[in-house]
């Protein structure tokens, strides 16, 4: 006699009308750029590092935010995150505000500000600092909400703590320029970086 524990049946999986089966892809806009691969991200990274070495941090930040792999796979996104963090760490405290004002103004400035905000939050949530060799984490909730509270945090342990303080000071400056509206938009945006 087969024994079924009815309490453990996932009834949501059986009900096509259930809200747990919400099609998340319906939230992706049609204007999403082409899927970028890890090699595309790597070539963008080389270009950006070139600009950074050439003494053009504003151009580097602008380029790295414009080439964000919004439609890419996890690997491409990891590589690009490492590039963004390199750029952010390569800019001196005193120059932050001036560079941010340059990057967040002009055509598409608001999108760049939102994109940078996404990278700041992603950088703060990733456990291994600055590494491009992170294994993708298992989603904690059945629907990947993009946010999870159960995660190792890198509080004050060497390099991680330093990276965090850089991200936090960028965050502070960015909120001064783009306002709290940017944070709210990043919370809901499904075009993740």
């Amino acid at each position, binding site marked *: 006699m087969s024994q079924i524990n009815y309490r453990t049946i996932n009834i949501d999986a059986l009900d096509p009308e259930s*809200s747990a089966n*919400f*099609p998340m892809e*319906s*939230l*992706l*806009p*049609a*204007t999403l750029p082409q899927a970028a691969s890890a090699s595309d991200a790597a070539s963008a990274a080389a270009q950006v590092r070139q600009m950074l070495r050439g003494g053009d941090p504003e151009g580097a930040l602008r380029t790295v935010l414009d080439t964000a792999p919004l439609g890419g796979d996890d690997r491409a996104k990891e590589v690009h995150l490492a590039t963004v963090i390199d750029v952010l760490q390569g800019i001196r405290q005193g120059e932050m505000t001036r560079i941010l004002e340059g990057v967040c103004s002009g055509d598409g400035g*608001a*999108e760049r500000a*939102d994109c940078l905000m996404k990278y700041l939050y992603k950088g703060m949530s990733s456990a291994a600092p600055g590494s491009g060799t992170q294994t993708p984490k298992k989603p904690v909730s059945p629907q990947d909400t993009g946010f999870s509270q159960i995660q190792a945090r890198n509080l004050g342990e060497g390099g991680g703590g330093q990276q965090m303080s850089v991200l936090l000071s960028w965050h502070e400056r960015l909120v001064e320029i*783009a*306002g*709290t*509206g*940017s944070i*709210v*938009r*990043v919370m*809901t*945006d*499904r*075009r993740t970086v």
Partner: protein
Amino acid sequence: MAAPQVHHLFHAPIADHSFSFDKKTLAVARENNVELYQQSGNKFALSDELKGHEKTVTSVDIAPNSGRIVTCSQDRNAYVWEQTPTGWKPTLVLLRINRAATFVRWSPSEQKFAVGSGARVIAVCYFEEENDWWISKHLKKPIRSTITTLAWHPNSVLLAAGSTDSHARVFSSFIKGIDTRPEPSAWGERLPFNTICGEYLNDTAGWIQGVAFSPECVTVVYPSAPEQPPRAMLNIATRLLPLNSLIWNGENEIIAAGHDCEPFRFHGDENGWQLAGSLENKAGEVRGAREESALNMFRQMDLKGQAQADTKLKSTHQNTVHTIRTHEEANGVVRSFSTSGVDGRVVIWNT
């Protein structure tokens, strides 16, 4: 610009408010009841209560001409209230929904009203003479989540709806025998019931909290990242916290309010929109300018841990604004509008 008229009605959130056509009566949703206020002098005094709902009332609307009030609530019911010599008489509406009703608005013809709900349907309700009963037809596909807001086109057929699945949609709610066939417009020529005339996703996938047809009716707008004509969609990225509700003022101005507790103006046209500033006049306020004695300052620091009590917001509303409605308008230009919010205030603003 004259100062806004503030009516602090009670210390409880106002989910929705509605003025009668003559602006003398104000209906306010307060917890499980709807309270009716009558204007007397400069004030609004409580005159009647509409009791009947068993859970929080989420929305209320007074029909301008017939004076009928429709209310809907989290108890999944809607009532139409009619004034009789013995008081307000409720009629239950068969909504056939299994989740809370969230939003209700009369159509401009006042023959129908639409109820948005958490059951992923919009119930379009109309009165059937034969049965002496309000019945509903459901707009269902392709709604994937709770309806948060609705707006009627002046032809009473097209209905714009905003939803928590981040889409704003325009439906046809044409009901044979009730509606006259609409003129062909930018939205389509033949419009049977449940035609989807437009479906727009907000780029950042935020919830749609408000929609409105522009005076020329080619545009639907939603805040938090607003604006969309049938062909293109534009988002206005602002520095602000999410906006909850909006109205059009002419073809080139939107007034919206939300979690920042004050109304904002947006200016623009087909080429782009931008924030033009707040309608709040903060500069005129003189606050805390008086000279503090050192003794008083140290006493305050000792008692409260701070030198100055700073618990009041500088805005007129002291909490989130839920609803914004046109109060008086002439030729499509809004002369005054009213807002209500979580702080229990109804404010009438002059533009």
